[in-house]
């Protein structure tokens, strides 16, 4: 677990001071026992992934992390972070042995793990950590750097980040919202240059880079010296197979061992195929219906009863069964369930009768023509299903699927009216989600509620977690009570596993869509 003691102790020195002769004898005995047991088997075999998306060299470099989750598919193999999301812990110390925040919240100290090395054998040092942070130029780079006044390296194993003012979200931004906390070797990057690094990246992760053919194939090999444990699969290969049916065919033939993104009827087919296994992963990507006109007194959506009618009309269970075989999560929130400060709203029932009653009370007894329902065309299937639910209670809408890039731009530029079907897999916590989608000035906010805005301002400067959490919970509760959004689901990403695989590592890290950590991946009969 993450050590978050708010003191200035050096944990290494502390451990050394507390170690007794009895401890040393015990450790020696353990060493003898370990030497007597069967040595760990060397990594062997090859595992092939069928990737649904072309892999980009920019994803070999943590400095380029653009704010989408996809690069982390490769970062988890090649690189390592001081602190990163791991099984059971969204912020586990990795290259850092420990982390401490000062009582005033202005200093965040990391002690580096002894013996952690890069693939070229060079030790991971404080200078590498500082260099990686300063070099970072990806998503939210300016935002995070503006808050850091200095990065100090008092000794090769200690790094201290000093902030201008207390910032409770420093660790989440440093470890997972950005790639700033994923460490690259300073000397190597300086010697080969930026382009050279993308061509032959070196990291401190469980797998070493071997070769890459853009759009075709990526090969990596196990790094036996990885600090957490040596991987058991010798070679990992990612083959890019853009077509979903072809990916499934390749999985059925045993040409690949794990196939990403097999949806709908193909997922059903996968589930029926003997020897194959469907591996659903609920990702940090909730979808929702947003009532963009709720602040317009002339709009029917201004009436909370009408918005509530929508949320009661939605047959979420039916939609989930039809589209993701029941694997998506019906949280009733726009905040991913695994995010820090998440508040669980009460279950929203599917109650068309109550929805009709609310509509009648609001003066729409026979329903009404509600105009347009905007959505990203990639998720038009979800929109169609939601639209059927609305039609059932008399809310008649016209579907307007828009190509993804145009939709995202139009949504952010606030060009749409009426109903918008949105979704986001952006990293963060409940506060960052509220900031972007609920609070005044947010990138996708068409209007806001002053009391929610005030609560947001309060929590933003609250460094005491115990006091901050209730404020964020209250904000989410208000969003739920006012039906600012009608949440749809938290999407399940469906993948396939072939018969040779013992542990695919799908779903081990909460909300992470891909197979990770890679050192946990195992083939049957492997070590």
């Amino acid at each position, binding site marked *: 677990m993450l050590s978050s003691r708010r003191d200035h102790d050096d944990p290494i020195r502390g451990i050394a001071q507390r170690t007794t002769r009895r401890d040393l004898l015990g450790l020696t005995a353990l060493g003898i026992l370990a030497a007597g047991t069967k040595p760990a088997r060397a990594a062997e075999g090859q595992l092939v992934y069928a990737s649904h998306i*072309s892999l*980009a*060299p*920019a994803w070999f470099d943590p400095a*380029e992390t*653009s*704010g*989408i*989750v996809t690069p982390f598919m490769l970062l988890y193999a090649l690189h390592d972070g001081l602190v990163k999301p791991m099984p059971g812990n969204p912020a586990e110390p990795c290259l850092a042995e420990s982390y401490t925040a000062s009582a005033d919240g202005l200093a965040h100290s990391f002690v580096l793990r002894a013996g952690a090395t890069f693939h070229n054998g060079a030790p991971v040092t404080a200078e590498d950590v500082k260099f990686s942070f300063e070099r970072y130029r990806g*998503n*939210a*780079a*300016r*935002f995070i750097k503006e808050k850091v006044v200095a990065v100090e390296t008092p000794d090769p194993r200690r790094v201290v980040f000093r902030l201008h003012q207390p910032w409770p979200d420093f660790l989440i931004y440093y470890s997972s919202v950005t790639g700033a906390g994923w460490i690259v070797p300073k000397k190597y990057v300086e010697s080969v240059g930026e382009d050279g690094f*993308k061509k032959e990246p070196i990291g401190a992760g469980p797998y070493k880079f071997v070769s890459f*053919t*853009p*759009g*075709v194939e990526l090969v990596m090999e196990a790094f036996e010296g990885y600090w957490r444990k040596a991987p058991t699969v010798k070679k990992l290969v990612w*083959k*890019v*197979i*853009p*077509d979903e*049916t*072809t990916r499934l*065919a*390749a999985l*059925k*033939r045993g*040409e690949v061992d794990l196939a990403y993104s097999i949806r709908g009827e193909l997922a059903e087919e996968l589930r029926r195929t003997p020897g194959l296994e469907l591996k659903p992963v609920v990702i940090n990507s909730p979808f929702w219906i947003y009532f963009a006109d709720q602040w317009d007194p002339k709009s029917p959506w201004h009436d909370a009863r009408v918005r509530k009618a929508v949320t009661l009309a939605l047959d979420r269970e039916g939609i989930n069964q039809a589209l993701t075989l029941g694997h998506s999560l019906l949280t009733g929130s726009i905040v991913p369930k695994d995010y820090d400060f998440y508040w669980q709203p009460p279950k929203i029932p599917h109650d068309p009768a109550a929805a009709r009653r609310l509509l009648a009370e609001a003066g729409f007894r026979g329903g009404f023509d509600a105009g347009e329902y905007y959505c990203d065309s990639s998720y038009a299937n979800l929109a169609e299903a939601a639209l059927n639910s609305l039609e059932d209670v008399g809310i008649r809408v016209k579907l307007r699927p828009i*190509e*993804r*890039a*145009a939709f*995202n*731009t139009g*949504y*952010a530029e606030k060009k749409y009216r009426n109903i918008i079907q*949105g*979704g*986001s*897999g*952006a*990293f963060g916590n409940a506060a960052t*989600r509220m900031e*972007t*989608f609920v609070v005044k000035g947010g*990138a*996708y906010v068409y209007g806001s509620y002053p009391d929610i805005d005030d609560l947001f301002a309060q929590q933003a400067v609250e460094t005491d977690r115990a006091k901050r959490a209730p404020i964020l919970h209250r904000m989410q509760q208000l969003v739920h009570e006012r039906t600012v959004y009608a949440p749809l689901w938290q999407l399940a990403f469906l993948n396939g596993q072939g018969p040779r695989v013992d542990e695919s590592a799908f779903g081990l890290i909460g909300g992470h869509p891909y197979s990770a950590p890679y050192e946990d991946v195992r083939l049957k009969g492997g070590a």
Partner: protein
Amino acid sequence: MKQYILRRVGYSLLSMFLLSLVIFLFVRVTGDPVSLLVEPGASPEDIENMRRQFGLDQPLWVQYWHFMASLATGDLGQSFYYRTPVLELYFQRLPNSLLLASVAMTLSLLIGIPSGILAAVRVDGFWDSAGKIFALLGLSLPSFWVGLVLILFFSVYLGWLPSSGSGTPLHLLMPAFTLGWYFAAAHMRLTRSSMLEVLGSEYIKLARLKGLPEALVIGKHALKNALIPVITLAGINLVVMINVAVVVETVFAWPGIGRLLYEGITFRDFPIVQGVVLIGGAMIVLVNLFVDILYAFIDPRIRLES
């Protein structure tokens, strides 16, 4: 003759300039690529930074000027998505596309020409009808459907062929057939109509009247002339096969230029789309220029008329 060649070269350069302008504007009409490279919810500042990084914050004419200036030095720019020079990506994929296109073209000619001849010689007979059905299916069945049916039958059901990828001759069979069938149908139809026209001409009637064997009349006198438009079309089709076999390369995960173009379109990677279209366009312009000049050499009337 010199003036004729210079004029043709001038037309070619003008075509390339217009193509560059059209493709430059068209890709930008499709929307903002940055919104595909960040997660919904990214801060406006991050989006703006990315636009600046790719030069998309500049006025259109400045972007075009940079594009043309780079082009003049042989630089097609750097892919937004792969962060790799477009030319490097293109040449990485080119050998695969050349291989696929040459096998598919060979198949299409081997199927299309004999069936076209047979259909013309046995006009309105069984072979003609069979050829017409073959052509109709080849031209109307979508390549993605043909590809998927082949994968399901030969890979999944029979287990004879690999479902996708590249590396061995077996990997090549299904994509080459899928791509080749469409063009075989086109070549068959053109061969048939061209042969019918030639078979109705005076010199063929004369050859028959002279009592030449039918095989010689068809194989030597008719086919040679009938093949001229077919070969011209095949040349252009080869360029098309190399550059825009988008569907076939995507279904079979064949790592060629068509898939590069598909990726460019999918991710709104302007430099890739511009680069692939410009190189493909340049190939077609060059082939046409070569043919024009060749015609002028062969047929003096062309250069005199022009």
